[in-house]
C-alpha cells in the first residue's frame, strides 16, 4: 500500500514543481507578449526577393542560415553513425522471420514507387513549393522502411547508399569551400540566380543543388537509422 502512496506522492510533488516553474515562466511571458515588428524577417524577406527562389523558408534554411543546415546535417550524420555503432552486433543470429502476409507484400510493391516519386518531387521542388531536402529524404527513407517491413529477402544495397552518402557529404562541403574561394564567404551563392527565371528548375543558384544534396544525404542516413533500429544490426 505505501508503495502506491509513495508513487502518488512523487507524482503530486512532480506536478507541483513542474507547474510552479511553468507558471512563473508563463506569467512573465504573459506580461510582455507583444511582437515587435522590427523582426529580422522583413529584412530577410526583402533580401530573399532577389535570390530567385520562391520559397523564402528554403532560402533562409539553405542560404542565409546555410551554416545551421550544415551543422544539422552533421548532427544527423553523427546520429546515424552512433546508432550504427551502438546497435550493431556482429554475432547476430539470423532468426527465421515469419513471412509477412500477402496483402502487405503486394501493397508494398504498389506503394513503394509512388512514395519514392513523391519523395523525389518534394526534394527537387523544395525551392518552389513547401518541403525540401529534409522532408524528401525522410519520405524516401519511409519508402525503404516499407520495403524492409514487407519482404524478407530485401537486402539494403549498402554499398550504393554509402557511396551516395559520401558523395553528397563531400559535395556539400566542397560547394561551401568554393563559395569561400570565389566570394570569400563560406557557402556564398556563386552560381547565377537572377529573378527572371523564378519558377524554373535550377533558378536559385546553389540553393536547389544544395537542397537536393541534403535530400540524398538525409535519405541515405535515415534509411541506415531505420534499418539499424528495425533489425538491430542483424543485417548481412
Amino acid at each position, binding site marked *: 500500500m505505501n508503495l502506491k502512496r509513495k508513487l502518488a506522492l512523487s507524482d503530486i510533488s512532480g506536478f507541483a514543481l513542474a507547474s510552479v516553474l511553468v507558471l512563473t515562466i508563463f506569467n512573465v511571458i504573459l506580461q510582455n507578449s507583444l511582437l515587435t515588428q522590427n523582426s529580422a524577417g522583413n529584412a530577410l524577406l526583402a533580401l530573399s526577393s532577389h535570390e530567385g527562389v520562391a*520559397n523564402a*523558408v*528554403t532560402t533562409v*534554411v539553405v542560404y542565409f542560415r546555410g551554416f545551421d543546415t550544415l551543422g544539422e546535417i552533421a548532427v544527423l550524420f553523427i546520429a546515424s553513425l552512433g546508432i550504427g555503432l551502438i546497435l550493431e552486433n556482429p554475432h547476430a543470429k539470423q532468426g527465421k522471420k515469419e513471412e509477412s502476409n500477402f496483402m502487405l507484400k503486394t501493397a508494398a510493391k504498389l506503394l513503394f514507387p509512388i512514395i519514392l516519386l513523391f519523395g523525389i518531387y*518534394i526534394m527537387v521542388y523544395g525551392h518552389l513549393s*513547401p*518541403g*525540401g531536402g*529534409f*522532408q524528401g529524404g*525522410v*519520405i524516401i*527513407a*519511409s519508402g525503404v*522502411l516499407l520495403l524492409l517491413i514487407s519482404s524478407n529477402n530485401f537486402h539494403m544495397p549498402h554499398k550504393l547508399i554509402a557511396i551516395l552518402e559520401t558523395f553528397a557529404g563531400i559535395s556539400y562541403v566542397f560547394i561551401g569551400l568554393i563559395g569561400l574561394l570565389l566570394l570569400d564567404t563560406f557557402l556564398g551563392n556563386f552560381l547565377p540566380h537572377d529573378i527572371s527565371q523564378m519558377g524554373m528548375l535550377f533558378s536559385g543558384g546553389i540553393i536547389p543543388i544544395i537542397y537536393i544534396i541534403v535530400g540524398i544525404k538525409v535519405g541515405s542516413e*535515415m534509411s541506415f537509422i*531505420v534499418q539499424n*533500429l*528495425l533489425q*538491430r544490426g542483424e543485417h548481412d
Partner: protein
Amino acid sequence: MIGFIILFTFIALIIVAFAALVQKKLEDSIILFMGIGLGSVILFFTFNAPDVALTEAVIGSGVSTFIFLTALKHLRSEQ
C-alpha cells in the same frame, strides 16, 4: 474561424498528451503520442507554416513514432 481551430486542437493536444503520459500500457501511450504528432501538424498548418507542417508530419510524428514502436518491440521481446 482560425482562433476556434487553434483553441480546439490545443485542448485536444493537452488531453492526448496527458493521457499518453499517464497511460499504464506502453502501446496505448505510443498511439496517443501519434495523436500529438497529428495535432501539432494541424496547428502548424493553421499557423501558415507549410514547411514546418510537412517536416513535423514526416519527422515529428512519422519517424519518432516509428522509433518508439521499434523500442517497444525490442524492450518487449525479452519479457
